[in-house]
């Protein structure tokens, strides 16, 4: 019965959605092969222990909480030392991180410290024999690579949104531990964490994303996209690279190979033609809706639903209908 390790990410004293995703994915992998233990690790400032129990809901049998004032923000060296120490202390088949900005920084450090194989940005995995097989969309999502990792534990970073945070409740044992390296002695120090307004849903966490492209013709027309997102109530606003390059939207809104890679339940592409670089960031969305005036635009090749026509007529109507549908 293979045991699994899951790194649970926190920010600002709260567990992030990706923390539940990694724990739930570890739980499913353990259960699929006989049901081993899932051990989660969470690091942060004092007070985090009160949040740790929630990880039991998603299938953690034990949660190690490392609280220290110096861990309030990400401290790469103390985080890596602590994660590596905890992973080494168990006998895990695999250790899963999120392929979030933090996880993509942390997982390679841990893998290098322990001399273990790492598969990044994984969208599916299974424990098979002594190996772990992991799927990873490469070549801007145009080729799915299945990787074989040998040596235990295999280190994986999981694409945010690709693994559902399903509840599989356990009464998690909460243990506290000290950091394996002095957080105050790190050479790399995060001196400031500037959060965006709390009211805006993050692209990686929103179940619905409404994105706009050049077809909107001007920055002020993004209001149409924002209104549609507001009508859904659970939507974040994204943009194409052309739009962020032109400064219509901040660079952090960019979805695509060079921006954010997202897998929401629903992706609504407004005035987006579907350049390869953009498709690489959203083609794993579960349902894709395209609204574009050009019926031959590549976006319609990946769309599940589409409307061809003038977005300035279609989007306000869609906003109304979505609002009605949600209030009925």
């Amino acid at each position, binding site marked *: 019965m293979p045991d699994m390790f899951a790194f649970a990410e926190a*920010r600002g004293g709260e567990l992030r959605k990706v923390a539940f995703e990694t724990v739930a994915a570890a739980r499913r992998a353990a259960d699929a092969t006989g049901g081993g233990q899932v051990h989660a690790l969470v690091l942060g400032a004092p007070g985090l222990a009160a949040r740790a129990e929630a990880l039991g809901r998603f299938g953690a049998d034990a949660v190690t909480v490392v609280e220290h004032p110096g861990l309030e923000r990400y401290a790469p060296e103390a985080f*890596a030392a602590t994660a590596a120490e905890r992973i080494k202390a168990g006998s895990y088949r695999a250790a899963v991180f999120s392929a*979030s*900005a933090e996880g*993509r920084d942390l997982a*390679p*450090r841990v*893998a*290098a410290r322990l*001399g*273990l*194989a*790492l*598969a*990044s*940005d994984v969208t599916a995995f299974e424990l098979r024999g002594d190996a772990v*097989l992991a799927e990873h969309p490469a*070549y*801007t*999502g*145009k*080729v*799915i*690579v*299945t*990787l074989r*990792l040998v*040596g235990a534990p295999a280190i994986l970073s999981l694409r*945010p949104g690709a693994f559902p945070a399903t509840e599989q409740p356990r009464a998690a044992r909460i243990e506290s531990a000290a950091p394996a390296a002095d957080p105050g002695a790190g050479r*790399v*120090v*995060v*001196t400031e964490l500037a*959060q*965006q307004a709390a009211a805006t849903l993050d*692209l990686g*966490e929103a*179940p619905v994303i409404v994105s706009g492209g050049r077809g909107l013709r001007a920055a002020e027309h993004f209001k149409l996209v924002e209104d549609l997102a507001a009508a*859904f109530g659970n939507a974040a606003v994204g943009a194409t690279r052309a739009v962020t390059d032109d400064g219509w939207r901040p*660079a952090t809104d960019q979805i695509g*190979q*060079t921006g954010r890679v997202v897998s929401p339940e629903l992706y609504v592409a407004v005035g987006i033609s579907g350049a*390869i670089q953009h498709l*690489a960031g959203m083609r794993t969305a*579960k*349902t894709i809706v395209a609204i574009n005036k050009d019926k031959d635009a590549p976006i*319609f*090749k990946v*769309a*599940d*639903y*589409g*409307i*061809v*026509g*003038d977005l300035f007529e*279609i989007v306000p109507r869609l906003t109304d*209908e*979505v609002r009605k*549908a949600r209030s009925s």
Partner: protein
Amino acid sequence: MKIAVCIKRVPDMELRFAIAGDRKSLEQSGLKYDMSDFDGYALEVALQLVEKQGAGEVVLVSLGPDGVQETLRKGLAMGAARAVQLKADQVPVDGLAIARALAAELGAGGYDLILFGRMATDTASGAVGPMVAELLDLPCVTSISHLDLEGQGGTARRDLEGAAETVRFPLPAVLSIDEGIARPRLATLKGIMAAKKKPLEVRPAALGEVRLTIESLALPAERSGPKFVGEGPDAVPELVQRLRTEAKVL
């Protein structure tokens, strides 16, 4: 200031990919290769830093078969002083094996900075930079969208999901560079001519044990094509109906 820039040669992503008969590699015919996009940004950052300081050199390192020499020459044409090819029959998918070979080359080089692109555009892992840093026990900041160096250290900005971090680090350090930080320059004709005479050393890559291999490649399942395409605003009610009943997302 002495800066190493690690670059990767990758296929042109605009092309169609086909899987070769072994199911583990890409059909090579028709593929065109170039420097990975993010590495161009890293190289530009390095060139600007050396220009600003008025002293130092930029050294390029690339691991792979002889084809990488073309990519290294391109970087030399942009302004790097010299280049090293760590020769391997192919680039392994095991990032740690690559990192070992790079660390063996870079460790004794006396570099103030070792730069990487945020990720290679083909494998999109972004793991090799922080792995090299760990193997060399150097401070590391990844995915940098803004960089200021001052004295024996620097500050960098990293964009996270819905937030941004300001990070302080000492030199020497390993940094990975996000796009947009500095637009890569085009090589001039003079640069291209000069590049032909710049030193390009070839050494075997010390990859060590490989623990990550390709099991198989596949093309993604084609999306079955749209279930419904309507025309104009009158198609909206049917779309919403289908989002409710078929896709169950409303």
